[in-house]
């Protein structure tokens, strides 16, 4: 029997891996992918509780989360393109000043 707890633990694992990726990796593209992992973990939670409580609100909010994830990916990748054009690097350690 698969319970809501199973989904929450899976979501916790994905979230932890996402945070680990954001902290440990210095490649901007990988950091953005880790961010997507975190948003996916949030979505699993929304869906699990939507099922648990029999309430559609969780699914509606998951739609919003996916929208925000798409917007965030577009902006983040735009930043990467601008960054590479400016500094020829995607290493976050080499991007520590605000002004170009």
């Amino acid at each position: 029997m698969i319970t809501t707890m199973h989904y929450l633990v899976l979501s916790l694992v994905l979230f932890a891996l996402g945070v680990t990726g954001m902290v440990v990796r210095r490649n901007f593209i990988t950091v953005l992918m880790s961010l997507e992992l975190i948003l996916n973990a949030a979505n699993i939670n929304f869906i699990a509780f939507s099922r648990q409580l029999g309430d559609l609100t969780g699914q509606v909010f998951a739609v919003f989360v996916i929208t925000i994830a798409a917007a965030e990916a577009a902006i983040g990748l735009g930043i990467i393109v601008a960054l590479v054009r400016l500094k020829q690097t995607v290493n976050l350690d080499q991007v520590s000043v605000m002004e170009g």
Partner: protein
Amino acid sequence: MDFLLVHFAELVFYCLAAIAVAGAVGVIAFRSPVHAALSLLGTFLAVAGLFVLQHAEFLAAVQILVYAGGIMVLFLFVIMLVNVRTIPQEPQYLARLAPIAAGVAIVLAALVGVGLWAAVRGGPVSPAALTAVQGQAAGNTEAVGWSLYRDYLLPFEVVSVVLLVAMIGAIVMGRKEPGREGA
């Protein structure tokens, strides 16, 4: 064979969960961004399968269309555009923080465990509400649509404005600035 039939949902869940976690590990373990992106794609597809198991069929379709079809292609395009063939070795400066990290992880896991246990003590209710429109049985897509356009119309419109702003922002940032040429 009986075992397979009785425990089919469990088997599917564990397979998909294993794929999702393996993909997530791949994202942070692979050195090449292309490998990480493809590994992330596996996670997205597995999560879509999990959505189906949880009676969220519409979201599973959206997950595949938006994540696998849109965001992933965007990532791969940018990786190709940027073409970072030589990524310098990342410094290992986090290794000496390992004991502190282990302590924090244990405390966090305990806190989350207690919270999870408290949150899901009762079993799930019937999934009928996830496919019902005003009490009538319908499809999941129809039900989400009703909820989205009746109860959450204003947030929906706000989110569309967010998307528009993000689109304009991405175009502005990706544009070549004429004054910067050769600078």
